[in-house]
């Protein structure tokens, strides 16, 4: 008898992703949907998509979602979570959304230790608007607004969100992952699942940064985009667990 080994997660609608070929968003969407199915939390999950390529995430995710203005996702998610503490609330943000226009909202949601999860897609570029320089654009990287390459004197340095946010005492779990190989996709899934579980257990703020390919705006093919993450991006943005206070947070919550 045939056994089903691969199927559409229940938490994904039957719509075709609008994302470009080779883009990491669709991979991360699927991973999130699988996790929500596995944790059986579709009915209690509320997602907050950003302005950016993932603005249409509600066309794909089959659970409740509310759009936030550009960068404001964590403020909105904080309020939803405090209003409905037994729901699972996450915001999904790009690098411009989180590290530029919404850095204050993201930083302070983390610092307050809001019991929410941020999924942070870092593809070193503004995707939806056509490939402008992002706060996470690499030095020397050419974009439409850094045509000669990002210049540290004029443009400053790539913002290391995971390094910075892991310093905040409000953060319980923070990991940087990649979706440029099957093994790395599996690691990403593990990390996001851990972050969601951290929230379900009431242990506090979690953020998963994901280095994600953008072949269209990097002007590379998909294979080279995946290589570029390994060879260039990880030099600036090394993957790994930057903070894991889950055990301590659990102990503290049991003691209460």
């Amino acid at each position: 008898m045939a056994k089903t080994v691969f199927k559409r997660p229940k938490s994904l609608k039957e719509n075709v992703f609008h994302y470009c070929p080779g883009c990491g968003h669709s991979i991360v969407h699927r991973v999130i949907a699988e996790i929500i199915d596995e944790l059986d939390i579709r009915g209690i999950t509320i997602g907050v998509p950003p302005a950016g390529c993932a603005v249409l995430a509600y066309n794909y995710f089959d659970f409740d979602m509310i759009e936030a203005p550009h960068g404001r996702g964590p403020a909105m998610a904080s309020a939803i979570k405090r209003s409905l503490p037994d729901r699972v609330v996450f915001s999904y943000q790009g690098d411009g959304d989180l590290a530029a226009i919404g850095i204050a909202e993201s930083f302070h949601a983390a610092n307050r230790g809001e019991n929410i999860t941020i999924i942070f897609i870092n593809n070193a570029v503004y995707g939806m608007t056509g490939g402008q320089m992002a706060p996470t654009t690499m030095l020397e990287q050419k974009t439409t607004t850094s045509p000669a390459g990002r210049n540290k004197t004029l443009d400053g340095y790539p913002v290391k969100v995971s390094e910075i946010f892991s310093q905040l005492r409000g953060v319980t779990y923070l990991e940087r992952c990649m979706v440029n190989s099957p093994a790395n996709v599996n690691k990403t899934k593990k990390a996001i699942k851990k972050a969601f579980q951290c929230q379900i257990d009431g242990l506090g703020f979690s953020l998963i940064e994901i280095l994600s390919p953008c072949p269209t705006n990097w002007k590379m093919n998909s294979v080279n985009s995946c290589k570029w993450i390994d060879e260039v991006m990880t030099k600036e943005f090394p993957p790994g667990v930057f903070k894991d206070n889950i055990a301590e947070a659990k102990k503290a919550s049991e003691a209460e």
Partner: protein
Amino acid sequence: MNKVLMSGNHIIGEAAIRAGCRFYAGYPITPQNELTEYMAENMRNVTGGIFIQSESEIAAINMIAGSSAAGLRVMTSSSSPGISLKQEGISSMAACELPGVIVNIMRGGPGLGNIRPSQGDYFQATRGGGHGDYRTIVLAPASCQELADLTMEGFDLADKYRNPVMILADGMMGQMMEPVIFKKPKPRVYNEKFMLRGAGSGKSKFIHGLILDPIDMEEHNWKLARKYAVISKNETHYEEYKIDDAQMVLVAYGTAARIAKGAIKRLRSHGMQVGLFRPITLWPFPELQLRDLSSKIKQFLVFEMSTGQMLDDVRLALQGYADIQFHGRPGGAVPTPSELANVIAKHYKKND
């Protein structure tokens, strides 16, 4: 219920909590800090009450948008420069049809201006304020009692029309103390189907203002416009004061209307028949009611603590049927009733 003596900012907070507001987010700015502090102190004493001191005005408005979507009665407050920052979120709430009350305790502007009472934000409040084709309901209290009543009514209107409501007062209203009676709030009427609380075992929903198809977006705009037309028809409120025998009518709102009443008392003691038309809703503006007055009264004087903003709405309402004069004190300057009375006396012409 007994009368209690409270300051304006505290009254708004108390009225909000009594009306069932259970989520408040705000950022400190003078002259409305006492309201934020009141909410910090008192939200923790009510079941389910949530207070967040946000990192910015922008965060605060988006927090109330989130909590509103989750189904709570929500409020934020600020003063002029902070209200400018909130406009992105107010536009977004209007687009997504999320109810909420936004309090603006106006101060002198433009820019950082000063912290004195002013009415320079009339255009911003009544023309939507943020980007896009939308309106907010704007309530303009002129006494502490009205601060209480209109705050409560603001929550009902926000729910009824699923639209942001602005309480537009100024530093004078926020800081002054008067006796007030808190009325019994009406029970909340708000359909659960508009709340976003997780799909359960049902169909998922999403709340969004992004509508990429221009024809769909056009229809959304027309849908909002039809709603605004209903609001204009049903929710226009105003006060007439000594209008019956008036040969000249002042038009003023909020603190300016209180000063106008003082001026009118003085003028009447000198035999000048002057009355007051006070819009209580600034949007919708009581346009037709004001126009009706012009059938018998031909002299109007608009008085604002600005260089003349509501003046535009008065001109639109009167459509040239009557003579309109203007007196303004912008930038945080507050005239005395006698100053205003002198100005009015110069313009007043007795009909033969």
